[in-house]
């Protein structure tokens, strides 16, 4: 990184820091990692992410990679996916994994919850229609159990059906037999995961630590 370039990026980083709430140092670390993953190019493609060895054994690998390229997570009001992302978009996705700072007001905490749950919701709602229908939910459970071998198949279906029933009964209560429950809307999603303290659970420590403890040299 030449001197002029670093001055430019410093300014950008400061900008990003203000917008996303990360510290300069954290952004620096994330940038280093980005460069590593993208082989020092400006943009990151799916293949770059797919080649990370740590993701190999992860059952929901495909969904995770898709989440990075999903436009809905990039704070744009569009749907669909992009093919490549720049550093800024990478950072945007990472903001979802910020831990909850201390001393948040109730409203801020609620917003943080919504943001994180929205991320999860988007991961499930693959056709971007705003609801998670039975098929999508079944696929989620199937993927989760995909490493389990053949035991998983039918039970996955049963589990997804049961879960859907649970959501329907918690959110809609009584329904006429011929009414159709289209799927889990975002509001319903919020409701069923009400007791799930996601703002404390959904965070990655990486974003909290300084460079001294970072092991960015090893991973690729």
């Amino acid at each position, binding site marked *: 990184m030449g001197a002029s370039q670093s001055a430019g990026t410093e300014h950008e980083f400061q900008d990003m820091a203000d917008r996303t709430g990360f510290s300069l140092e954290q952004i620096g670390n*994330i940038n280093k990692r980005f460069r590593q993953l993208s082989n020092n190019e400006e943009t990151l493609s799916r293949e770059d992410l797919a080649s990370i060895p*740590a993701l190999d054994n992860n059952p929901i690998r495909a969904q995770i990679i898709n989440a990075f390229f999903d436009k809905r997570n990039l704070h744009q009001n569009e749907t669909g996916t992009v093919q490549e992302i720049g550093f800024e978009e990478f950072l945007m996705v990472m903001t979802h994994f910020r831990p909850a700072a201390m001393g948040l007001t109730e409203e801020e905490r609620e917003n943080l919850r919504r943001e994180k749950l929205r991320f999860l919701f988007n991961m499930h709602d693959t056709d971007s229609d705003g609801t998670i229908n039975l098929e999508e939910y079944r696929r989620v459970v199937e993927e989760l159990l995909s490493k389990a071998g053949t035991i998983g198949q039918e*039970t996955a279906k049963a589990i997804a*059906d049961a879960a859907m*029933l649970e959501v329907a009964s918690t959110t809609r209560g009584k329904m006429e037999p011929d009414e159709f429950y289209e799927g889990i809307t975002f509001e319903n999603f919020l409701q069923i995961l009400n*007791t799930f303290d996601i703002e404390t659970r959904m965070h990655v*420590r990486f974003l909290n630590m300084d460079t001294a403890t970072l092991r960015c040299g090893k991973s690729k």
Partner: protein
Amino acid sequence: MPAFSCAFPGCRRDLLVIVLVVFVGIGLPIEASAPAYQSHGTEGSYLTNVTNTKKAFPVLAVNYKHVRQPFEIALWILLALLMKLGFHLIPRLSGVVPESCLLIVVGLLVGGLIKVIGEEPPVLDSQLFFLCLLPPIILDAGYFLPIRPFTENVGTILVFAVIGTLWNTFFMGGLLYALCQIESVGLGGVDLLACLLFGSIVSAVDPVAVLAVFEEIHINELVHILVFGESLLNDAVTVVLYNLFEEFAKVGTVTVLDVFLGVVCFFVVSLGGVLVGAIYGFLAAFTSRFTSHTRVIEPLFVFLYSYMAYLSSEMFHLSGIMALIVCGVVMRPYVEANISHKSYTTIKYFLKMWSSVSETLIFIFLGVSTVAGPHAWNWTFVITTVILCLVSRVLGVIGLTFIINKFRIVKLTKKDQFIVAYGGLRGAIAFSLGYLLSNRHQMRNLFLTAIITVIFFTVFVQGMTIRPLVELLAVKKKKESKPSINEEIHTEFLNHLLTGVEGVCGHYGHYHWKEKLNRFNKTYVKRWLIAGENFKEPELIAFYRKMELKQAIMMVESGQLPSALPSTISMQNIQPRAIPRVSKKREEEIRRILRSNLQNNKQKMRSRSYSRHTLFDADEEDNVSEVRLRKTKMEMERRMSHYLTVPANRESPRPGVRRVRFESDNQVFSADSVPTVHFEQPSPPSTPDAVSLEEEVPKRPSLEADIEGPRGNASDNHQGELDYQRLARCLSDPGPNKDKEEDDPFMSC
């Protein structure tokens, strides 16, 4: 006891008091007059050989000595349990005063009674305490330790346990020594080491007392695990400090080498305890792999291996408590995958039972020992001790939290800190350790008195006021949430997601290592320790089956009709579209699914793979689920045939009438038939096969259950009828016959 039921309220309590007094009254004179009977017994045996005084053959003789010890033990335990029973009969008392306080008071009363009679009241023997009374409580705590919050907070817990206890010891010991130096107190003979020894005894938070009090206040998980974890893990520190100071007090001087050795000793004691516990835990898990033919003794393996772990580590002066906890934690996942459901229930109930009895006895004996023990009261010393305990605890917690919060994601709030500080209760362990002090220490009685005072203060004052304080400060309570399958799915999803994101970030963090451990566990360890094919089963499926089984049992036990349950959402609400438009292709599919499901069922029955969850392990499992499933199938088949023969218009629109007629038609009105109607409740259906069956046969059951809904809409029902008929006709070809065929081998199991 119908003869004793009384009309007016105070009667019950009086009755209980009378019963108790009678018991105590009988017990004590027997103890007191034991020697008299003893001599009578031996005399009788001599006389048989001497013929000068011929005694008549003793038809009825009393030989108390023979049964004395077990009799006394049984009497004490019975007394303790009757007291416990009595407290719960008095409604308001148990809500205000924690049980531990009441039990101590009872102990005091009983001790007083014994003294009045003139006998020597028994003191809480340290050996009895450490070898018999303490292990069940610790095993119960360790076996059911909630692992996730414990491992998430293990750093904090260790800091509180180790550094907190050290701070308490030195702060208190030092200040008390300074106090003793003051001339006016008159305790000039107490040297520094004795004070430090005393400090080490009294500074450890006691798991028994913490359990007893915290169980009743239902505080949030975080604070509970912090205080509780601390009380368990500080045993290592206490053991080391106690032994260290006792040795030093004998010798009288301390060198740097001794201090260094002390530190080494700490690591040896704690890690050694952990190692011993882990070894026994793995042994127990391995043994449980082979118990499929001798289910009855399974619980014994769990208890005995754990007890051996405790005794082995006590033998080497390692931390027995840590060994016990580690043993329970290590063996639990493997043992639970191997043992039968009944054994699991047995283990749970026996542990709860023993720990309950132990706890009760400990508190009663504490009360009795207070009356019995030699006391040396010194106002200044005792009061200072109590105050110092509180002060050092508060300071310690605040100071440590300040440091810890820098490393925690979820910071500890002031309220949390307060409860952690206030919940640091002292209990019987401190007393027993004090009692173990050899008589060489001239201050032994003084120390004992001070210890007892501290214990009383913490248990009574802190124990009683913690509940209103929790209410007052509006501290977060424990979330009483039912296990929800959505939460379970998302917990796993989130774990994988976070592991993945950590991978993307290149950071080998918490989730990465947890995932690695899980994988190692699955590929190597589980293979050795879990019987059969179970080790491949992922957690989500295990959770789901557990839920099913629980609900099945619950339903049969309650025998209630599901109209008691509020919701009427059924599967059809989620995917009705599949049903009305049943194309030829779908028909084929449905038939295929049904057939394969039923076949799968048979296969599963034969392989006996899920030894704990299996619904078909007929020889020792509860036949509940199996019977129910059988009846469900029969029911389904009967219904389908019934509706095939009944023309669409025959049914009247009112659901109430329909319901009655339906039941009388099929003559199934029992709890077991309820499951079929149950399917549309929010709980998951009983088995995967049942789901597929039910999916295709939705409308009939739901109409029955929906009694409360005003359903004047006849056309809806009619529509439902027609749909159903259509479907039933589709299924009619393979349906009933297929079921019948499959049912026979089914029933033969």
